[in-house]
C-alpha cells in the first residue's frame, strides 16, 4: 500500500520536475506575493524563476515558519496531495500552528537582543512577552513602540524594557543598536565623524538618534526591602558636536530620525520641563518624552528606513539573505540587490499595518520564495546584451554624478544655515543659563523661607506645650499655695513660656525676612523670563530655515542614494552578464578542448603503434646487418690466413732457390760428386714442388680477396639499409612522442578549461543566489538546529504527546472546546508552552555552542571543530539517536526491506525520498552489519544528522 502511494508521489515529483517552471496559484493579482513576483521579474530581465519540488518546498517552509522540519507523516501527505492549492494550504496551516509564534519569538529574541546576557530581565519573562505578542500577532510597530518606551514598570509590561535595561540603559550602545536593529544602519563610526567609508552616514544621523536616548539612564529604586532597576528618562537638550576629522564645522542637533529633519519640540523655560521632576527614589517624568516621540514617529509608518529594515529582515529570515546584506548595513556602497522590490516591501509592510504574520504569508507564497535550490541550466546559459547595458550605464553615471553634486551643494547650504543658527542658539543658551541661575537663587530663597517657617512652626509647638505646662503648674501652685518650691517652679514655667514666645517672635521676624527675600529673585526671574522667550522666538525662524535646508539635503541625499544604487545595480548586472558570457565561452572552449582529447588520443595511439610496428623491421635489418658483418669478417679471416700461408711458401721457395744456386755452383765445381748430384736433384724437385704450391696459393688468395670485396660491398649495402631503418625508427618514435605530448596537452587544456568553466559557473551560481534566482543555503540557527534534531529524532513529538496527555488529564477535550477555535488555540498554546519548557535548556546548550558572541550579529555562519565534536561525541545527540520507542532508528533497524528503510530514513531526517544510489548505500550499510542492525541504523541516522544537507535550510 505504502509502496503504491510512494510510486504515485514519485510520479508527481517527476511531473513537477518536467513542468519545470510552475506558476504559483494566484487568486488576486493585487496580492502582495503577485506584486513581489512581478517586480522581481521586472528586475531580473529574461531570467526565469524555477520553482522547487514539493519536498524541498515543504522542508524550507516548515523550517521558516515553525523552526523545525515536517514530520515524516506530513511529508508523505504533502507529497501525495494532488490539490493545486496545497502549497498555500501548507503555509496557512503552519502559520496557524502553535509553533509559529514560538519561532517568531525566537527570531525576534535573537534579532533584538543578539544573545546578550539577561542582566535584569529573566529570559523566561522576556520570551513569554515575545511569544504572547506573536500569538496575538502584535504589529511590529506596536512592539517597537513598547520596546522603546518601556521603563520597566509592571504594566509596561516590564519585560519590554529588556531592550533598554539589559543594555545597561547606556545611550551610546542603545543608539548604535537602535540604528542597526530598527533602521538597518550601523553608524558606530559616525559617532565621532562622518563615516569614512560609507558616505551617506553623517555624524548628524548618529547624534540625531543619540539625542533620543542621551537623557536616559539606569535608575535603581528602593521598593520596600528590594531594589529594582528601571529606565529613567530626563528632559532632553540639544547636543553640539564637532567632527574629530573636520575641525571647525560645528553642528547642533536635537533629536532627528534617520533621513528626517530635526524634530520640532515644545519649548519649556528651565524648571518647567517635568510633570514629575527628578528626585530621590522617584522616576522622573518629563512633559515631553523624546522616546515616546521616536516611537510615535516610526510607528506611524512614515519612515522609509524603519519600514525597509523590518521588511528586509523578514525577507532575510525567509530567503536566507537580505535584499540588503548584511541586514544592518544599508548604505549606498552596499545597495539592495533589488532596490525597487525593497521599496515595495517597505511600503507594503507599513500599508499592512506591520502585520508580520500576513507579511510572512505573502513572502512564503511568492515564486521567489519557492525558487529551486539546484541551479537550473538556463540560469547559467543566459547573458544580457552587454553593449546595451554599458550604454545604459553611461547615463546612470551621469545622473549619479549630478545627484552627488546636488547633494554636496545641499549639504553646504545646510552647513551654512547651521552656522547661522549656532550663535542665536548660543544666545538662547546664555539666557537659559542666566534664567536657571536666578531660578536656583529663587528656589534657594524659597527653601530658606520654608526652612524658617518650619523652625517657627516647630518652636510654636514647643511654646504651646510649655504654655500649657505653665498654666497647669500655676494651677498646681495655686492649689498648694504654701509650697514655695512649687510656686518657684511654676514661675519658672511661666518665665520660660514667655521666653519661648519671644523666641518665636524673633523666628517669625526672621522667617518674614526670608519670605520677603523671595520677592527679589522672583521679580528677577519674571523679568528674565521674557528674555528667554524672546531668545527662543529669535531661534524659531532660523530653526525653520535650518529644517528647510536639512530637508533639501535629505531629499538630495535620498536622490543620490537612489541614483548610486541604480548605478550599482547596473554594474552588478553588467558583471553578471560578463560572467555569463565568459561562462558560455569557457564552456565552448572546454567542449572544444574536450573534443580534442579523443582525437589527440587516437593520433597518439596510432603513432605509438606505428613506432611499435617498426620495431620488427628494425630487428630484421639488424639481423641482416649482423649476417653481412659476420660474412665480411669471415672473408677477412680467409684472406688473412691465405696471405700468411702464401708468404710462408714464397719464403720457402726463395730459400730453396738460394740453396739450389749454391748447390748448382758446387756441383759445377765437383760434377761427379754423387751426393751433390742427389742433393741437386732433390733440390730441383723440391723447388718445382714449392713453386707449384706458391702458384696455387696465389690463385687461392686472389679468389679470397675477390670474395672479401664482395662481402665488403654487401656489408656496406646492409649498413646503408640499417641507417635508413634507424632514421625511420627515430622518425616514428619522435612522432609517437609528439603525439603523446599533444594528447597530454589536450588533456591538460581540457582540464584547465573545464576548471575555468566550473569556476565561472560557481561564481555565476553565487551571483544568481545573491540575486535570489536560486535558493540560498541558509545555516539553521542554533534554535532551529536544536528543534530539528528533536523533530527528526522524535523527541519533540514524544514530549508533545506527554504534555498533551497531561493537559487532557487536567481538562478533557470536549466537543465544546473542539468547536471553539479560540479555546482550541489556547489549548495548543498551552501544550506547546509545556513542551517548550521541558526542552528549552537544550536550546540554551545549542545557542552557546552554535551561536555567535553576545552583541554580535547572529547571522554569520561559522563551523568549528568543537561543534563537530559536540555532534559526534556529545552525550545528548547520541542518546536521542539511540533506538528507542519506535523512533526512526528503531524503525529502520527493524525494517528488513532496505528500500522501505531508506525511504523512512530519508523522509524522516531529510524530508525527501532517497535516490537509488542512496537506497543502495543504506542496503550496503545494513549488509555490512547483519548481526548488529541497531548499530548500523544508528550510524545511518547520525550520518544524516551530521551531514551538510541537514545543517542547512535550502
Amino acid at each position, binding site marked *: 500500500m505504502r509502496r503504491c502511494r510512494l510510486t504515485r508521489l514519485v510520479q508527481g515529483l517527476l511531473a513537477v520536475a518536467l513542468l519545470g517552471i510552475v506558476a504559483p496559484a494566484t487568486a488576486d493579482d493585487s496580492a502582495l506575493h503577485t506584486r513581489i513576483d512581478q517586480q522581481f521579474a521586472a528586475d531580473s530581465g529574461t531570467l526565469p524563476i524555477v520553482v522547487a519540488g514539493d519536498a524541498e518546498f515543504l522542508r524550507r517552509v516548515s523550517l521558516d515558519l515553525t523552526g523545525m522540519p515536517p514530520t515524516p507523516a506530513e511529508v508523505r501527505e504533502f507529497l501525495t496531495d494532488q490539490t493545486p492549492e496545497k502549497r498555500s494550504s501548507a503555509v496557512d496551516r503552519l502559520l496557524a500552528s502553535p509553533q509559529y509564534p514560538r519561532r517568531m519569538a525566537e527570531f525576534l529574541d535573537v534579532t533584538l537582543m543578539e544573545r546578550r546576557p539577561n542582566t535584569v530581565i529573566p529570559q523566561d519573562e522576556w520570551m513569554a512577552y515575545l511569544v504572547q505578542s506573536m500569538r496575538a500577532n502584535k504589529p511590529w510597530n506596536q512592539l517597537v513602540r513598547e520596546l522603546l518606551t518601556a521603563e520597566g514598570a509592571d504594566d509596561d509590561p516590564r519585560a519590554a524594557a529588556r531592550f533598554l535595561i539589559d543594555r*545597561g540603559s*547606556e*545611550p*551610546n*550602545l542603545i*543608539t548604535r*543598536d537602535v540604528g542597526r536593529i530598527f533602521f538597518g544602519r*550601523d553608524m558606530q563610526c559616525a*559617532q565621532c565623524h562622518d563615516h569614512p*567609508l560609507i558616505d551617506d552616514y553623517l555624524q548628524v544621523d548618529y547624534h540625531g538618534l543619540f539625542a533620543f536616548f542621551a537623557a536616559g539612564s539606569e535608575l535603581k529604586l528602593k521598593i520596600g526591602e528590594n531594589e529594582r532597576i528601571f529606565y529613567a528618562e530626563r528632559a532632553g537638550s540639544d547636543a553640539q558636536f564637532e567632527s574629530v576629522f573636520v575641525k571647525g564645522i560645528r553642528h547642533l542637533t536635537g533629536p532627528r530620525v534617520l533621513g528626517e529633519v530635526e524634530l520640532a519640540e515644545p519649548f519649556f523655560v528651565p524648571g518647567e520641563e517635568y510633570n514629575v521632576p527628578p528626585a530621590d527614589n522617584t522616576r522622573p517624568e518629563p512633559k515631553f518624552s523624546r522616546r515616546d516621540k521616536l516611537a510615535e514617529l516610526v510607528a506611524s509608518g512614515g519612515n522609509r528606513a524603519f519600514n525597509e529594515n523590518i521588511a528586509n529582515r523578514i525577507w532575510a529570515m525567509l530567503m536566507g539573505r537580505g535584499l540588503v546584506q548584511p541586514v544592518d*548595513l544599508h548604505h549606498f*556602497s*552596499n545597495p539592495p540587490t533589488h532596490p525597487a522590490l525593497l521599496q515595495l516591501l517597505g511600503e507594503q509592510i507599513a500599508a499592512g499595518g506591520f502585520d508580520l504574520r500576513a507579511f510572512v504569508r505573502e513572502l512564503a507564497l511568492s515564486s521567489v520564495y519557492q525558487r529551486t*535550490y*539546484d*541551479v537550473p541550466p538556463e540560469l547559467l546559459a543566459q547573458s544580457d546584451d552587454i553593449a546595451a547595458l554599458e550604454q545604459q550605464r553611461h547615463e546612470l553615471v551621469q545622473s549619479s554624478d549630478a545627484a552627488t553634486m546636488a547633494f554636496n551643494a545641499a549639504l553646504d547650504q545646510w552647513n551654512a544655515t547651521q552656522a547661522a543658527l549656532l550663535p542665536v542658539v548660543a544666545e538662547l543658551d546664555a539666557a537659559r543659563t542666566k534664567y536657571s541661575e536666578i531660578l536656583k537663587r529663587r528656589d534657594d530663597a524659597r527653601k530658606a523661607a520654608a526652612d524658617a517657617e518650619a523652625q517657627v512652626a516647630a518652636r510654636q509647638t514647643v511654646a504651646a506645650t510649655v504654655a500649657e505646662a505653665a498654666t497647669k503648674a500655676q494651677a498646681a501652685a495655686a492649689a498648694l499655695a504654701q509650697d514655695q518650691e512649687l510656686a518657684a517652679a511654676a514661675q519658672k514655667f511661666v518665665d520660660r513660656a514667655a521666653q519661648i514666645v519671644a523666641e518665636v517672635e524673633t523666628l517669625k521676624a526672621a522667617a518674614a525676612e526670608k519670605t520677603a527675600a523671595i520677592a527679589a529673585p522672583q521679580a528677577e526671574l519674571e523679568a528674565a523670563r521674557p528674555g528667554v522667550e524672546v531668545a527662543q522666538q529669535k531661534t524659531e525662524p532660523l530653526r525653520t530655515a535650518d529644517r528647510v535646508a536639512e530637508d533639501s539635503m535629505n531629499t538630495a541625499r535620498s536622490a543620490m542614494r537612489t541614483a548610486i544604487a541604480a548605478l550599482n545595480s547596473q554594474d552588478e548586472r553588467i558583471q553578471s552578464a560578463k560572467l555569463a558570457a565568459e561562462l558560455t565561452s569557457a564552456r565552448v572552449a572546454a567542449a572544444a578542448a574536450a573534443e580534442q582529447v579523443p582525437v589527440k588520443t587516437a593520433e597518439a595511439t596510432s603513432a605509438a603503434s606505428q613506432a611499435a610496428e617498426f620495431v620488427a623491421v628494425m630487428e630484421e635489418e639488424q639481423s641482416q646487418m649482423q649476417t653481412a658483418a659476420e660474412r665480411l669478417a669471415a672473408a677477412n679471416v680467409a684472406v688473412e690466413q691465405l696471405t700468411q700461408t702464401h708468404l710462408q711458401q714464397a719464403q720457402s721457395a726463395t730459400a730453396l732457390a738460394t740453396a739450389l744456386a749454391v748447390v748448382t755452383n758446387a756441383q759445377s765445381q765437383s760434377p761427379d760428386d754423387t751426393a751433390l748430384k742427389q742433393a741437386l736433384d732433390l733440390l730441383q724437385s723440391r723447388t718445382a714442388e714449392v713453386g707449384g704450391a706458391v702458384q696455387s696459393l696465389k690463385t687461392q688468395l686472389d679468389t679470397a680477396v675477390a670474395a672479401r670485396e664482395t662481402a665488403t660491398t654487401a656489408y656496406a649495402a646492409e649498413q646503408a639499409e640499417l641507417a635508413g631503418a634507424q632514421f625511420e625508427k627515430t622518425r616514428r618514435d619522435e612522432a609517437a612522442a609528439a603525439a603523446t605530448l599533444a594528447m597530454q596537452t589536450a588533456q591538460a587544456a581540457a582540464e584547465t578549461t573545464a576548471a575555468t568553466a566550473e569556476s565561472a559557473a*560557481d561564481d555565476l*551560481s*553565487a551571483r544568481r543566489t545573491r540575486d535570489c534566482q536560486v535558493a540560498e*543555503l541558509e*545555516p539553521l540557527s542554533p534554535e532551529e538546529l536544536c528543534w530539528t534534531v528533536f523533530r527528526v529524532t522524535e523527541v519533540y513529538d514524544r514530549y508533545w504527546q506527554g504534555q498533551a496527555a497531561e493537559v487532557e488529564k487536567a481538562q478533557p477535550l470536549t466537543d465544546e472546546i473542539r468547536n471553539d477555535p479560540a479555546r482550541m488555540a489556547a489549548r495548543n498554546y498551552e501544550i506547546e508552552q509545556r513542551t517548550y519548557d521541558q526542552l528549552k535548556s537544550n536550546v540554551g546548550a545549542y545557542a*552557546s*555552542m552554535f*551561536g*555567535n*558572541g553576545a*552583541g*554580535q550579529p547572529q547571522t554569520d*555562519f*561559522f*563551523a*568549528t*571543530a*568543537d*561543534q*563537530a*565534536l*559536540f555532534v*559526534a*561525541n*556529545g*552525550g545528548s545527540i547520541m542518546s536521542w539517536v539511540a533506538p528507542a520507542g519506535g523512533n526512526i532508528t528503531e524503525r529502520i533497524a527493524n525494517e528488513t526491506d532496505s528500500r522501505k528503510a531508506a525511504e523512512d530514513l530519508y523522509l524522516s531526517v531529510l524530508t525527501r525520498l532517497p535516490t537509488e544510489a*542512496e537506497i543502495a*548505500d543504506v542496503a550496503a*550499510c545494513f549488509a*555490512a*552489519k547483519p548481526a548488529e542492525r541497531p548499530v*548500523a541504523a*544508528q*550510524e*545511518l541516522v*547520525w*550520518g*544524516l544528522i*551530521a*551531514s*551538510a*544537507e541537514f*545543517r*542547512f535550510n535550502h
Partner: protein
Amino acid sequence: MKCNYACQSADHLLARRRFLGGMAAAGAGAVVGGLGHFTRPAAAAQLAKDQKRIVVFNMHGGMSQLESWDPKPMTDTGGPFRAIPTSVPGIHVSELLPLTAQQMQHLCLVRGVNTNEDEHGRGAYLMVHGRRQTPGGDYPTLGAVAAKTLMPGDSALPGHINVTPGGGGGRGNDASYLGPKYSSISLGNGNPPQNTTLPNGMTAEVDSARQDFRRRANERFLNRRRTAVTDLYTYSYEQALGLMRERDVFDTTKEPAAAIERYGQSDLGRMCLLSRRLLENGVSFVQVSHSNYDTHNENFNFHFEQVSEFDRSFSTFVADLADRGMLDSTLIVVLSEFGRTPNINVYYGRDHWSHAWSVVMAGGRTIRGAAYGKTNDNGTEVIDGQVDHGNLFHTYLQAVALDSTSSFDIDGRELPMADPSSKPIDALLA
C-alpha cells in the same frame, strides 16, 4: 590601509578550494583525509621556524612589580626583599626570581607602564584588548587577533587556548567581531577539549563507518552545488577528527619525568609544560593564568609563595623555548591587570596601582636582555619610557611581524587591529 584578512577574498577562497580539493583527493583512497601532516617531524620543524605564536602569562589580581621586575630595596616602599643581579650586567630583579634572573638575556623588562586604571575588571580588559572598554564598542582580545592572523587555515588544533587552573572547558566569548572561530577554548585543569573521546561503548570501527556514511551523504549533496559554507561545514568534521587524533598533545604525562620535574610539580608547572606542547604543535595563542596576586593583606608572604612558584616554571619555560629555537617565532608576555602600590598598608599589603608598574616580554622581534623605562627611586612614578596598554598591544603584534596599524575587513566594516590612536614602542623591536 586595507588589510585583507577577510575569509571572503578570492585568493583565500582559491587556496582553500585547492586545499580541500587536495584533501578530498588524499582521502579518496584512505578512510580519512588530511590534517595528519603536522605530526610529521619535518613539517613540525618548518612550522617551528616560520609560524609565529604568542603566549601570555596572566598574573591575576595584580602582581607586585616591587616583588618581581622592578625592586626598590632599602627604600620606604621597597619591602623586605633584596634585589639580585641577573645574567645581564646592570639589570637587577627581586630575589624572589633567582632562576628567571639567569634567563634575563632573553627577556625585555618594560618598567614604565602606566595604564591609569585601578579597577580589576577594567584593568584586565584593557590589558588583553589593548583598549579601554567603551559603551557600544567591543573588541577582540589579543588571543583572538593572534588566532585570526597567525593560525594556519588547515590546523586541527584551536588557535586560541586558555589554560586555567580548575574550571570547565568550552568556548569563550572574546573574539567580538572576528567571530567565534577565534574565540578561546578553555582547557580547565589542563584537560583536553570537550568531546574529544568517542561516546561510551562506540568502537573505532563504528565511528569510522558512520563518518564514512556522512562523507558519502555530503559528497552527494555537494555534487548538487558546492559553496564556501558547505566546505567549511564538512571540513569542521575532519578538523574534529584531526583534533581527536592529536589528543596526546594535551597530555603532559607523555613528557619525560625529568621535564615534569624541571617545570615544577605544581598546577602552574603542568600548565607551562602543556603550553609548550601546544605551541610546538602550532597553536597560535596560549594564555596561562596564575592566581591570585591581589594581596591587600600579607603582600610579602603571598608573593614569596606565588612568585617563587612562578619563577621555577617560567624560567624553565623560557629556557626550553630558547633551547628549542622557538624564541624567535614565539612572543612571551607576562602581564597583570595592574601592579601594586609602592605604599605598604597597615595589613602589610599593597593595593591596586596602575601608574608605575611592569610588563615583561621575550622572543619574537623584541630586543633581548634589556630593561626599558624607569620608575623613580621609590617606584611612585614613571620617570622615563612611559607606555600604556595601547602601546604594548601594538608592540605585541609587531613582535610577531604583524602590521598593527592595519585593519580587518569584516563584512565591509573596516576595523583597526589595534587602537589607531596609539602606536608601537619602536625601541623594543629589533
